[in-house]
């Protein structure tokens, strides 16, 4: 996760070329070994246990290690050892920059300080990015907006699901608040009950969501492509409402709307959180309470 943020910054200021950036990100993707594979290789889990944890991971919004701990398949010490072996994405990226002779450690530190200021991140938020703490990273990019805890919780879940189902190196950018938002393609779903939330996704990154979630190639944003991305949104929203209902907040899902021509949402305080999935931009849209119009 860290590499796509810092690498993008280094590319923007001309330290990396776009090609070098892509190559380094690809190397980071290829070098990372799953915790389950490591655990089997180290003899800490047998295949059947790793498969069982993998299966449970597809149904629950939890990390492999946390599920394995809850099932007593791994101890805290074993998990810690595996995570050390798996390596830290931040260190891996820094190592590649120095190994390739692109930057020295001192230069990296200087750029890192400038990157933090440029992204308006606190030291704690930069540390969260280094350790790929999705909830804290999402929170950092929406901190300029005055959103409720409910919306924050929703966006964190959506962030985790983008990593789980679509791209484990998703990159967020600072959110903005507007009263009118227009996009050429958009999927929107309303959740109503104790409160009302309109949540959606828009722009070309929808294709990436559709392809990764449905495991099918889409060459244009057509009805099938929107259906696949819409199902991802539907599943995420359903999961959100299920979690809320366990805490006493009750809401229902409405049918999602799919728009493949220029569509505008008008409402007070629409939150737009841009993210990049395999380089394609997708806007996450959230309105809470109030009224909205879709034209």
């Amino acid at each position: 996760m860290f590499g796509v943020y810092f690498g993008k910054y280094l590319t923007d200021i001309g330290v990396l070329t776009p090609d070098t950036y892509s190559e380094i990100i690809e190397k980071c993707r290829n070098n990372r070994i799953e915790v389950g594979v490591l655990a089997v290789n180290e003899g800490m889990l047998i295949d059947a246990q790793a498969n069982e944890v993998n299966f449970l991971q597809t149904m629950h919004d939890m990390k492999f290690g946390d599920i394995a701990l809850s099932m007593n398949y791994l101890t805290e010490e074993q998990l810690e050892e595996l995570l050390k072996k798996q390596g830290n994405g931040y260190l891996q990226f820094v190592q590649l920059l120095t190994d390739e002779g692109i930057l020295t450690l001192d230069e990296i530190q200087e750029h890192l300080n400038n990157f933090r200021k440029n992204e308006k991140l606190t030291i704690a938020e930069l540390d969260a990015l280094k350790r790929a703490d999705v909830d804290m990273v999402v929170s950092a990019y929406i901190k300029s907006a005055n959103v409720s805890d409910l919306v924050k919780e929703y966006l964190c879940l959506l962030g985790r699901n983008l990593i789980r189902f679509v791209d484990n190196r998703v990159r967020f950018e600072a959110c903005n608040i507007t009263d009118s938002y227009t996009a050429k393609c958009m999927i929107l779903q309303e959740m109503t009950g104790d409160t009302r939330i309109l949540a959606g996704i828009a722009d070309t990154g929808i294709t990436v969501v559709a392809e990764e979630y449905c495991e099918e190639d889409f060459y244009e944003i057509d009805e099938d492509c929107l259906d696949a991305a819409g199902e991802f949104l539907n599943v995420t929203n359903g999961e959100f409402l299920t979690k809320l209902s366990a805490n006493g907040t009750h809401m229902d899902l409405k049918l999602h709307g799919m728009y493949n021509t220029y569509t505008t949402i008008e409402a007070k305080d629409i939150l737009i959180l841009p993210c990049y999935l395999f380089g394609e931009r997708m806007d996450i849209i959230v309105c809470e309470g109030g009224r909205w119009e879709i034209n």
Partner: protein
Amino acid sequence: MARVLIVDDSRTSRKILRKVFEELDCEICGEAKNGQEGYDLYKELQPDLVTMDITMPVLDGVSALKMIKTDFPEAKVLMVSAAGQQKNVLEAIKSGASEFISKPFNVEAVKQALNSILI
């Protein structure tokens, strides 16, 4: 080989379910995009099992379930929904559903539900 009717408005969801049931050696005898189509196809095909989404256009899944169970009390209906809130599960079971699974699902989850319904 169990004959299965899939009722879901999402093409993607139908595709995922079809793949899962084929891995479990089931025959997909029909697919419907809403509760009304699902009810009509049930009457025509009388499958061993129906998977029924809840939120659908034209006629929702719980209404379709009630219609099927009224005319065919022995029907086996597996409710499938993204929203697995307790009240949805209870309403579906009260209306005659045999089992309820939440999306996202995979082969193991469907297999467990299938075994509990058909065996």
